[in-house]
């Protein structure tokens, strides 16, 4: 299993870097084994370097940069071993408009790997969905599902319907 771990580590490292570049339009990211001699026990460092910046501790990254780095690692793992479905709860909240666009573009490419359920308040994320469910509390304290739409031009209406309901 040592060989399996090392092979997986190397593939994930490679894929993580590729997804990261597609989000940041350059830069690099990687996973580093703290103790190379002992891969089955060693901790792992994550380094991320957005385009043009210095390589540094991931804690210095901004809120949006951290979210995109985390999504890169998650999607890299799915590209290697897809999970049947994935629920993402408002992961687009820290992202600016430009990064929401990049996120939804990459998400679209993942559709043949996994099924995604995305909770969001952002109109652009709604528009990339194949189906849209509105949740409402018409009766205070009691949740109901309002409607299902299968194309994007009604994203706006479903959120508003859920609001008004």
């Amino acid at each position, binding site marked *: 299993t040592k060989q399996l771990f090392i092979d997986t580590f190397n593939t994930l490292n490679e894929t993580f870097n590729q997804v990261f570049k597609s989000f940041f339009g350059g830069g690099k990211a990687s996973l580093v084994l703290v103790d190379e001699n002992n891969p089955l026990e060693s901790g792992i460092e994550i380094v991320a370097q957005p385009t043009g910046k210095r390589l540094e501790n991931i804690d210095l990254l901004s809120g949006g940069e951290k979210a995109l780095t985390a999504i890169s690692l998650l999607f890299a793992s799915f590209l290697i*071993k897809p999970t049947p479905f994935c629920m993402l*709860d408002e992961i687009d909240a820290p992202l600016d408009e430009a990064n929401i666009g990049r996120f939804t573009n990459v998400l679209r490419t993942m559709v043949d790997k996994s*099924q995604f359920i995305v909770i969001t308040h952002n109109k652009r994320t709604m528009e990339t969905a*194949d189906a849209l469910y509105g*949740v409402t509390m018409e009766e205070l304290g009691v*949740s109901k599902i309002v409607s299902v739409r299968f194309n994007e031009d009604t994203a706006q209406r479903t959120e508003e319907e859920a*609001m008004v309901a």
Partner: protein
Amino acid sequence: MRLSKLEILGFKSFCDKTTIVFQPGITAVVGPNGCGKSNISDAIQWALGEQSAKTLRGEKMEDVIFNGTDNRKPLGMAEVNIMLTDVDGQLPAGFGEYKEIQITRRLYRSGESEYYINRIPCRLKDIRDLLIDSGIGAKTHTIIEQGKMDQILSSKPTDRRVIIEETA
């Protein structure tokens, strides 16, 4: 394998029986603050065997049972059904012949809990065994909770090994 249907009854703010059919691709769930979106994610995590009330934002597991409103009495039971389809070939031996799998979890106010696979009573361990190679389950990155996306980058180097082990 994919998620085809979710039925929620008496779980958190879903007092009445609610059914959600899922298509392949991307499904967006929208609605105002506090309407019950994250409760849907909690329902899936709970049905997959989550044992920590705190992860489901409660103090004790009874907190997931519908607690009543000004006009509705509290319920005595919470139930969630998850339907997985296109499962052929992805299940461990012993579950081989099923085309679809339905996982059911119930909790009564008395504290008693029940688990079912395709309506046959089973233990939590059976559900865990069923899902062991599927990539879904309470501990994998199938569910990213609200505000917790950064956790995958986690602060401790040894905690980060999980993402490699899940991908192997």
